Every structure is written in C-alpha cells, then in structure tokens.
C-alpha cells in the first residue's frame, strides 16, 4: 500500500535541490546583518572607503545569489508540487477505473470528484510551501532559541516554561483540525452532489418549476459547508494568539527571573538583553508557524480521504488482465455459449435478493429474449455476463469457461453491450462509436451505423459523423441515442450481443429493419424486451418473475405452460384487436 506522500519520491532530487536552495537563501538572509555591521564598523566608523566598497560588493553579490537561488527554487518547487499532484491524480484515477461496480456504490461520484481535484490541491499546496517557506519559520525560531541557550542556558530555560503546554496544545489542535477539515471536505462532497443532481435533472427541475426549491436545497448544503468551514477555521485561528500569549508570558518570565539573576550577579546584563532580543524574534515567526500547522492538518485530512481510494484492495478492484493465462482453448462449438448455473444475486448495498437460483444455457448463435415485470431482475441478470457484478451464489460460464477464469479484458471484448440508458459522451458521433473499437476504420463506423439504422439520420446532420454530441447525448432524440448506442456495440463484431431494452424508443419500422440487420451478425444474443413480437422472433424466451425463472422455452411452449406469459401476450394482443 502506498501512502499519499510516497508520490513525492520520484522527485526527491528536485525536492532536495529546492530545499538546499531555500537554505542558501536563508543563510544569506542571516549573514546580511553581520555584513552590514562590518560595513559600519570597519567602513563608516573608521572612514575606510575600500572596506565599504568591498563589503558593499559582497552584499550585492550575495543578494544576487539569493535572487538566483530563489528563482531557481521556484522552478524546482513548482515542478515537484505539480508533478506530485499529477502522479497522484493519475494514480487515483487509475485506481478508480479499476473499481468493481460494487465499489462504486460505496463512493458517490461527487466524493470521487472532490478527492481528485480539491483534495489533491490541498496536499499539493502544502508540499509547495514546505519547499519554499515551511521550514524557514521553525528553523529561524529554532536558531534563535539555540542562540539564547548559548548565551545563558539558565535564563533561556525560562523560555521553555510554556513548552509542555505548547506541545500538548498543538497536538490537540492538529487532531481537532484533521477531524474538522475532514468534515469540511465531506460537506464539499455534498455540495458537489446536489449540484450534480440538479444539472443531471435540469429538465425535470424546469418542468416542475422547482428552481426555488432546488435553490433552498442547495442553500442548505452550502450553509452547512459554510458553518463547518467557519468552525474549522475559527478553531484553528486559536493557535496563533495562544502560542503568542504563552511565548510572551515566557518572555516576561525571562525578564523577571533574568533580572533577579542579574541582580544576584549570576548573569550579565548584556546577556539578558540579548536573550530578550532573540526571544522576540521567535514570536515574530509565529504567524507562519500557525499557518503551517493549519495547512498540515488540512493536508492530513485530505490525504486520509485519498487514502480511502488508494487502499481499496483486491476485493474492491477488478482483476488485472495479465494475471490469467489465457491459453485454454474452448472447443469450437462452445464459442459463443453462455450458461448460468444456480445463480443468485444480491446487490452489495442491500439485502434484497434480486436473482435467485437462475439456470439456463444459450448456445452459439442462439437468441434469447428476456422478459418480465419491471424490477424482475432482467437488467441485473445482463449485468452479470460482462462481470459487472459477481454472482453471490452460483456461476456464469462463457464459452464453456467460468467467467472468473477469463481475464476481464478478454471477457468483455467478446461482448457487445447496449445498456438500457443510452449513455453517450461529449465528443463527435464517430468518436462515440469508436468507443467500441478504437482503431475502427471509417468504413467500419459506417457499416455498424447502417446496421443500427442510424446511418441515414447521421447523413442528414450538417457535420455528419463529426457532429458534436453534448454530455449524455442531450441534443439527440431518444431513438437516435439508442441506435448510436447499438452501433457502438456492433462495431466490435462481438460473439455475444447484450441488448437491454435498447429498442424501446424505436418505431416499428426501424426496429424491424434493425432486427433484420442483426440476423446476419450470427452472434449469441440476449435481448431484454417488453414486446412479444420481438420475443417470439428469438429462439428462446426466459421469463423472470421476482428474480426467479418463471418459464423458459420458445414462444409456443411458453404460451402453453405459463399463465404469466399468456397475460403478457394478452396485454399486447387486446389492443391490436381493437385497432384492427
């Protein structure tokens, strides 16, 4: 398991260079007063012009060196911070891509989005700061304390009377900060979530004129975010004043007890003054100090959230394709077969059994219609074939081989999947179709579009296959989306075609032509449909009821044995009679 900060490792050299450059700058800054003193002491006071000149030039050279280190540091620090962020985002995104569908149910999309952008940025900022200013303040404070000790340890000790309180206090604040900032990030997730929902449902919001309602809903989550952020930041703002107070009181203790010491003749007056000066320098760094602690708490909260994604282990990830040896040859007549053996299924986030004890077999090139009430488990059953989910009990075989023995890539490459909701992506039509096959030729795109009965329509668009599609295909009609989604599956020339009620928005003529075109495909087909007309043109029908197989057979068989099937047929014949 990799922790978030291990992603800095590849850039350790750059980070080191940036760090050293920062130290150089700091050193020059510390040396400067000494040189000024030299100019005054050796130059001005004794009227030695050459000495003024010499130290003046040294001063300028040092200033230039500091400038150069600073500028070069900018490059290195920015490089480390952004490369770290880049790698981390890539790692997170790759990990998310490897999630199983069940894992997605655990992480809402909005939470993943926040993690990939906002959370990474938080950590990245801290990293950048640590290469630029972070060490500076503590270092300066530390050096001042050391100086104080060198001068007179006994007096300097009084500076530490507050130390245990400081340590305890800071520990407490950092812990609190992590909890509070985690809460803030979670609130940000919620804001993202409501926003995403409203954008997805914008037409619904408008149809019911619910913008007021949605606004108040958003106001609620935004207000919670405001409250929690305010609370977190306000509590963290305690750090600086409290530290300052403790330090200042310690300073007064130094003055009080120090002067006693001087009075008793145990210390020189000059020593006391010097220690007072140094301790005042320590307090000067406290603003930065508090800032650092807040940043660290925030970064920790964010990195914990990212870790949640990064530590999702094998159980939550899809298996990598190269693990499996793929040589086992299926016998020819098993290619394209699909078999369910006593399959039961329950979604990971619920207790309801959606499928129970399903068994059937579909032979090569056979066409299976799946029917049943809404919520009978049709879509779920189809989702098991490309292994989106694993059966809770039982096995699914493709080409005579248990699908857990297939590599994910190989298994899915055999399947042309058309989901119920025709999801298209921002991009051109041809880009969308090429999802099915990345290197598809223009001719292949065209042929699959023709088969899906969408080619003619595309040709009427001004930009033809280069027409831009909006997110989720908003600018296309329902039927156009469905057919593009079918074409996207057909372009793969898969052995197995899975169509989940994908023709519901098609008119009869188009649908007829589509089925005809699919005849030539010779693929094993799974077709969820509501239409008896479609179902009876298939080889077999699987009728599901409440997750169980109600009946399985041809149209003619089912009409004999299943009353439910008869009902379905009746529900569709009745009106035909009336129409006639």
């Amino acid at each position, binding site marked *: 398991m990799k922790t978030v900060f291990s992603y800095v490792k590849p850039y350790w050299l750059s980070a080191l260079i940036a760090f050293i450059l920062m130290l150089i700058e700091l050193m020059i800054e510390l040396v400067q007063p000494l040189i000024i003193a030299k100019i005054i002491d050796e130059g001005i006071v004794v009227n030695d012009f050459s000495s003024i000149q010499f130290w003046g030039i040294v001063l300028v050279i040092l200033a230039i060196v500091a400038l150069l280190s600073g500028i070069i540091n900018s490059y290195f620090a920015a490089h480390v911070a952004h490369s770290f*962020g880049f790698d981390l985002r890539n790692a997170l995104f790759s990990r998310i*891509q490897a999630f199983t569908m069940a894992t*997605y149910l655990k992480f809402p999309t909005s939470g993943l989005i926040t993690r990939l952008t906002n959370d990474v940025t938080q950590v990245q900022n801290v990293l950048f700061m640590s290469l630029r200013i972070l060490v500076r303040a503590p270092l300066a404070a530390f050096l001042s304390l050391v100086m104080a000790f060198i001068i007179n340890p006994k007096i300097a000790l009084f500076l530490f009377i507050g130390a245990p309180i400081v340590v305890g206090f800071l520990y407490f604040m950092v812990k609190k900060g992590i909890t509070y900032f985690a809460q803030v990030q979670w609130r940000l997730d919620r804001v993202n979530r409501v926003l995403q929902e409203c954008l997805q449902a914008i*037409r619904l919001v408008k149809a019911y004129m619910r913008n007021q309602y949605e606004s108040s809903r958003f106001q609620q989550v935004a207000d919670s975010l405001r409250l929690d952020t305010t609370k977190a930041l306000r509590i963290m703002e305690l750090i600086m004043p409290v530290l300052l107070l403790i330090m200042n009181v310690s300073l007064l203790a130094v003055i009080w007890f120090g002067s006693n010491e001087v009075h008793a003749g145990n210390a020189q007056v000059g020593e006391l003054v010097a220690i007072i000066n140094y301790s005042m320098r320590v307090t000067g760094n406290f603003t930065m100090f508090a800032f650092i602690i807040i940043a660290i708490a925030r970064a920790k909260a964010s990195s914990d959230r990212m870790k949640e994604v990064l530590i999702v282990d094998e159980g939550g990830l899809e298996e990598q394709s190269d693990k499996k040896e793929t040589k086992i040859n299926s016998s020819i007549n098993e290619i394209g077969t699909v078999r369910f053996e006593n399959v039961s299924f329950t979604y990971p986030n619920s207790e309801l059994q959606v499928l129970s004890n399903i068994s059937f077999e579909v032979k090569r090139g056979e066409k299976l219609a799946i029917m049943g009430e809404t919520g009978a488990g049709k879509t779920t059953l189809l989702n098991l074939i490309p292994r989106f989910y694993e059966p809770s009990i039982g096995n699914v075989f493709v080409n005579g081989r248990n699908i857990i023995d297939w590599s994910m890539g190989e298994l899915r490459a055999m399947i042309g999947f058309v*989901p119920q909701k025709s999801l298209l992506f921002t991009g051109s039509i041809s880009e969308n179709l090429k999802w099915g096959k990345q290197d598809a030729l223009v001719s292949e795109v065209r042929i699959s579009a023709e088969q899906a009965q969408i080619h003619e329509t595309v040709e009427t668009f001004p930009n033809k296959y280069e027409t831009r599609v909006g997110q989720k295909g*908003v600018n296309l009609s329902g039927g156009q989306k469905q057919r593009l989604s079918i074409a996207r599956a057909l372009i793969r020339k898969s052995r197995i075609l899975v169509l989940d009620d994908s023709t519901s*928005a098609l008119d009869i003529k188009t649908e007829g032509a589509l089925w005809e075109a699919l005849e030539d495909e010779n693929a094993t087909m799974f077709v969820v449909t509501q239409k008896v007309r479609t179902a009876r043109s298939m080889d077999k029908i699987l009728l599901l009821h409440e997750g169980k197989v109600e009946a399985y057979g041809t149209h003619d068989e089912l009409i004999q044995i299943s009353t439910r099937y008869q009902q379905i047929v009746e529900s*569709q014949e009745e009106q035909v009679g009336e129409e006639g």
Partner: protein
Amino acid sequence: MNYIRKPFGYEPILKKEDLNRKTEKKKGPRASDWKSTLLRIWKIVDEQRILLITVFFMVVISSILSLTGPLLIGIIIDEYILKSQFQGMAPMIIVLIGVYIILSISLFLQNYWMIGISQTTIFKMRTGLFNHLMKLPVSFFDKRQHGELMSRATNDIETVSATLNTSFIQVFSSLLTLIGTVIVMIYLSPLLTVLTMLIIPLMFMAMRWTTKRTGKLFKEQQAAVGALNGMIEETISGQTIVKAFSQEERVIEEFREKNARLRRTGFWALTYSGFIPKVMNFLNNISFSIVAGIGGILAFNGLVTIGVIVIFTEYARQFTRPLNDLANQINTVLSAIAGAERVFSIMEETKDIDEGKLPDNTQLKGEVEFKDVHFKYDLSEDQETLKGISFHVNPGQTVALVGATGAGKTTIMQLIARFYDVESGEILFDGKDVRDLKRETLRSQMAFVLQDPFLFEASVYENIRYGKLDATDEEIVEACKKANAHEFIMKLPKGYDTILASDGSEISHGQKQLLSIARALVANPVILLLDEATSSIDTVTEVKIQQALELLMEGRTSFVIAHRLNTIRYADLVFVMHQGELVESGSQEELIEFGGIYSKMLEQKDSFRE
C-alpha cells in the same frame, strides 16, 4: 538553452503575442477586467460592513499593541535592567501581561470575524451562482459538461475563499505598518527615506511583469481544473460503458492528457508567482545596500550621524517587510480573481426572464395552438428541427405524437413546456401567446414525464412530492397505487421512507418510470406531457396503469409520445411527424381512412402479427 526555455520538459504557455494583446482586449465591458471582478467581490464583502469595520479596528488595536510590547520591553531594558534598578519593574510587567492578553484576544477576534465575513461571502457567491444556474435556459446546459460547471462552484470558489480568509487582514495590517514606518523614517531622515523609496518604481515594474503573466496563467489553470473535473464527472457517471467496452486504458490516457495540461499550466503559474517574493527580497537587499552605501557617504560628509544610519537600516528593513507581504498577497488575490471570473462569467449568462403581461394567476383551460412554428437547436447549426408546425388542440383532448425517431416529437413537447423559445411562429395557450405567460404560471399547471426518468437522492416520499410540494403522504401513496408502484415500494427496506440513490441499482429503470408517473399524478395538472413515459415498463404492468393514465388524461389536455401503438389507442387526435413536419393529423378513424403513413404503420404492426 532548450532546458531553460522548457524546464523539466514543460512547454511554455505564454507567447509574446499573447502578452501584448492584453491592451487591445481591454475595451470589452466583460468581467474579464480584474478591477470589476474585485469590485464585485468587494460589493458582497461590503454587505457586512459593520463587521468589516470591527475587524479593521481589531487590526488597528493589534498593530498598535504589537508595537507597544517591544516598546515597553525597550523601556524596561533601558530604565531598569541596564540601570540595574529592579525595583519598580513589577508594575511594568503587569501592564505588559495586560498588553499581551489584549493583543492575543484582538488577534483572535479579528480572525474570528474575518472568517465569518469571508465564509458568508463565499456562501453568497456559491448560492448566487447556483440560483443563477437554475434560471438559465435549457439550451445553456446542452452545451456544458456538468463537471465543468461543478468545478466553478467548488474549485473556483475555493480560490476566493482561501484569499478572503487571510488577504484582507494581511493587506490591512501591512498598510498600517507601512504607514507607521514611513512616518518614523521621514522623521529620522527625509533624504534616506527618499532613497529607500527609490525601489518602489522598480518593485512596481517587477510586479507588473509577473502579474501580467500569472494573471493569465491562473486563469488557464482554473480552466484546466474545470476541464479535468468535467472529464472525471462524465467518465465516472458513465462508468458502465467504460467497463463494458474495456476502455479503462483509453480514459486513463485521456485523463493523463487533461491532467498534464493542468500540470503544465499549474507549473508555470506557480513558478512565475514564486518569483515575486524573491524579486522583492532582492530589491530590498539592493535598497539596503544603497542606504548603507549612500548613508556612508553622507556620514563621511557629516550630513547624518552614524546612529541614524544604524537605526535607519533597521527601519528600512521594517519598511520592506510589509511591502513584501503585500507583494505575496498579490499572488493569492490574482488566483482568486481567476476563480471569481469564472464564477461571474456564468452569472453574466442571460437567464430566462420570467415575465409575462398576463397575471400570475391566469388559469389555463388547456387549449394549445401552434402557428407556423419553426425551431432549431443551437447545437444543430443550420438544420431546422421543426419546419413550420401548425395545429390546434381543444381543452381536454388527448394527442398522440407518432413518427420516426428524430422527427421532432420531443421537441414539440419541450416547446409546449417552453424549455426553448420558437425561432419564428407562435405558440398559443387559450389564444394567448406563450411568451406573455410567466413560465411559473405555465408550468405550475403542467406535468411533464420525461424520457429519462430521474430520481433524486431522497426518500420516495420526497421524490414524488416533487410534483406538488404540499402533497400529503396519503396523496402520495394514492398516486403510487394508481401508478402501480406501491407494491415494489413496500418491498423496499424502509418503504416510502427509503432513500433512493439516483445512480443506485435498487430501483430498475421501469420502476423509475412508474415513480415519475406517480409524480405527475400528484401534480394534478391542466396539461399533461408524457414523453415515452412507459417505454421501459412491461406491458402487463402498463395495462394496469393504463386505466390510471386514462383517468388522469380525462379532462386534461394531454400530449403523448409512445412507440407502442397500444399506448396511444385512446388518443382523440393523432399527429404524424416526419422530419420536422406535421404530415398527418386527425382522429384515428380519419387517418386510417386517409390511408397515409399512419395507416401503413398500423398495417406493419399487423404484418408482424402475421
């Protein structure tokens, strides 16, 4: 050489031409002018003026106190310690304790209130953005990626938030310190003060050089974040497809590209903005040397004393520190401006103006008329989706829209709901132009069951109540029973109180449609629009809810799109659409007799029946 131009392989982003073009572009009145952006943020901040003034006072107090502390210690050192008079120190120490306590309190309070101000400001910006978004026309959303818009409400606003939390106080106190120091410096030596000030123009130039670049780069960076956010949202929302087609590698590759763009812009923005403090430091050092050098010459000529030079160099240091702080703040402010601009640019999009000549309580009877309506979507450029549609529907009639996909049926529905405005022609309700009606008035008397059913992450109750916000639980259960949804709802873990997830899998697509119908049933509208409302519902269930639907349509003007002819058999009128034109219209009998497309469609269905 190449390594300097492209450090670590980062291609430079800014080109000479880009930088110079800025002056020409300034003319536009858009928010792209940073001054107006700052002013807009300031306006929101300024709404809490009283708090702001309090904060300012706290800053003044803490600035004074943080100067008083060292001053008093100085007195203690000079008057007591150095003179070895330790008696009489106690009162001073007690005073100092008081000073330090008040200092810490004032520091805490200024931050405490400032955070309140900034977070309220952020809240107002965020909700303002959201409220505006909700009022934008549907066509606006057709062109945008959800994630890109979301990024504005989160990532962009966060940049403003980060700045407001700290920058105000920083700027206040820096200015105060600056003024104080300058006064002391002038008092000490006007001549040396002028010398110290010499670097200000240089600082200004350096600042201009960097801000000219960082301003642009920050904008680029926020745009890159937006694009990335858009891609993430879209990909994860469509994850099924990614998995089904094993496109993980490809989307990861695409992600890398967008991510690389962010890295590149981010790198340059960070690098350039990192220059500012360093350059400032350098200029400080130089001015330091000048003061020391020229001061030396002056002292040589006896114009100033050495003591003055010593003190003066200390003050010159003090003078440049707040300047440095200010310079650093410029960076954060610039990134905030970049973020705020992206927020405001959305708020400048013209929203749907919801006005109408007709009174708000206009009661519709349900008569709908189209007069030579032409329409095209923004995205489809010059292709008209509707080419001169005219029809008239009486109150209470049910109209079935049929025709091939893409013929324009959904568009007609969307125009009735006034999601879009017509290109030319008129849409009349009860003889009144739709543009004279408030959208609110129109849609409150309308229910629209959309092609894609959508559920919010809320309980079943709340989801149905969306149709009528004051619906009672009983009404909802009643509607769900009619929509045949009651049975499956009762099987959910908590029945009607079950929280549904919009992307969850507990509810099937067909069940979502049933809930959408229930939602419309609760709304009790005058006009009902059903766009493929039952497409994913099995026919047995459909027959069951058919009755409820027929009941619902009675006495209401209804428009129905359905491909299954059985769902439209009870329509009073059938409109046959073909490529954006209304080719046939009339009652079922009339159309069958006419022997056109509709009758052919019926025949086809018959032919399937064998």
